[in-house]
């Protein structure tokens, strides 16, 4: 109960959690229900403002913006989960190898990580999509690759300090295998900063996917993606502003939610890092 109170006392955590639950809830709901089919066109009702029948208005094909924003949430959450999943699983594996074994494994892994880390997400995505072609899967891979060095550096740093702790040395002295030591003694203690980073990386992944879709490299039409919706709305801004407003608001709410949740979790789980600046993609 005290633990729960500690979480609920953090204003960043509470607001972040509410926003994230809102976005995730919308994403799940959109799989079962949207007011209209997100891809249904009705040219006679194109570029309408918000009304009772279309709460967020309609776009240049007369598609319901609310339905598309709702389905876009599912798209963003999927990209976030897969991209952060790729980055976290490979990053933790490489970081653990480098931090635990040290020596040339550490040196070689971290040099390669440094090179990837120097590439902004958009540049990584451009390289990958120029070869594999635009599409949601390739953009998830690109954002995932961008995340690998972030998790690798974090894990390595934690492993370097944790592997010298008394309880790890004791486990080694009683003959536990390296794998058992990592799994039972080091990884559980390195988990908090990883959870915080995963939350912040989720926000970065949503931003990156929106950016790539805006550029035409991510989600392909007619599937609704917030970034793509903004791109399609731009030529018609003089006629109706709503298609350029609601998808942007959705991105901002989702990113704000994950950022605040990350800040809150960091304050609660890892107070030492409470004031470190956040990086941007």
């Amino acid at each position: 109960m005290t633990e729960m109170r500690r979480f609920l006392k953090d204003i960043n955590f509470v607001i972040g959690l509410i926003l994230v639950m809102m976005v995730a809830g919308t994403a799940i709901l959109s799989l079962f229900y949207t007011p209209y089919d997100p891809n249904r066109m009705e040219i006679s009702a194109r570029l309408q403002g918000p009304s009772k029948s279309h709460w967020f208005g309609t776009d240049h094909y007369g598609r319901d913006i609310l339905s598309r924003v709702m389905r876009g949430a599912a798209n963003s959450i999927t990209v976030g989960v897969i991209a952060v999943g790729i980055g976290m699983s490979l990053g933790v594996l490489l970081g653990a190898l480098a931090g635990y074994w040290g020596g040339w494994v550490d040196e070689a892994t971290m040099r390669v990580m440094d090179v990837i880390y120097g590439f902004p997400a958009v540049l990584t995505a451009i390289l990958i999509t120029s070869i594999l072609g635009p599409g949601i899967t390739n953009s998830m891979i690109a954002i995932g690759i961008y995340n690998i060095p972030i998790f690798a550096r974090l894990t390595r740093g934690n492993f370097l300090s944790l592997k010298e702790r008394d309880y790890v040395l004791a486990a080694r002295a009683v003959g536990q295998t390296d794998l058992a030591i990592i799994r039972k003694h080091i990884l559980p203690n390195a988990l908090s900063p990883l959870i915080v980073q995963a939350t912040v990386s989720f926000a970065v992944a949503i931003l990156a996917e929106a950016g790539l879709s805006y550029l035409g490299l991510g989600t392909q039409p007619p599937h609704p993606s917030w970034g793509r919706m903004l791109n399609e709305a731009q030529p018609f801004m003089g006629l109706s502003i709503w298609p350029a407003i609601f998808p942007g608001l959705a991105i901002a709410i989702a990113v704000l939610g994950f950022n605040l949740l990350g800040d809150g979790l960091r304050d609660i789980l890892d107070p030492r890092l409470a004031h470190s600046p956040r990086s941007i993609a």
Partner: protein
Amino acid sequence: MIAYTIRRFITLVVTLFLVSILIFAVINIIPGDPAQIILGTEATPETLARVRAKLGLDRPAVERYLDWLKNIILHGDFGRSINYDRPISELIASRLLVTGPLAGLAILLTMLIAIPLGIYAATHHNRPGDYGTMIFSQLGLAIPEFWAGILLILGFAVHWRLFPAGWFTSWEEAPLEALRSLFLPALALSLTRAAVITRLTRSSMLEVLQEDYIKTAWSKGLPSGAVIYKHALRNAFISVVTILGLQLGHLLAGTIIVETVFYLPGMGRLVMNAIFQRDLPVVQGVVLFIAAVIVIVNFIVDLLYGLLDPRIRYD
């Protein structure tokens, strides 16, 4: 310091080398046949053979890589664009006239927005002004630069018609007009960065304001302006300048999206067009150029850090 500079320079060269291998490998080796990617699946064997010969794909990859690298280092030659049929270095140079000033203006606007806001927040710590600034900073981080760009176009170009959007007047034609057409894109680019730098200025200032020499300055009765701007800001500036420097490289990547929003003929548009037209040598050249700028800027910032703060010692 000299030993550190040499060590850091060697790391720079190795990193640049690794970056070039990575980019070359991704574009030339991983896909198997770049000619097939350029021409698509419906290309005839004759056209495929012609493009393969033009790109030198009949030679081993290592030989092609070494040639590519040698030409860049010795002659600044990044190869030739397939679509424009012009040297890529020429294309980059002409587009840099848009992207360079855009990035510079964005950095300037970032400083003009973020540093006063950060100082204000720190000097009004835990008061409404501080909370307001932190809310701005959170919102700045949440708003993607391309949406910021769209909102700026809506407000300042479509509604109030104060700035142009959607075209670029060249520097030779009308320099002031060119600067005007870069203002909104630079502002869009700077908002996210300003959010980061505001937070950083605030936290650096809060830290410095706790130092003994600041307390001494206050107790000597110095006016608050002198304490804040002369004593505190100078020291808080070190970390701010470092992060600003590191942002310059990433700004170049950010320009890719913002140039698309504002239809600016910069490097971002060049690389985007190259992707959709499958002009792989241009993608390869521009990505290497941007990555190299990022690595070199990081190197310079690293060295400047030591010069700005004499307390830092490199052993």
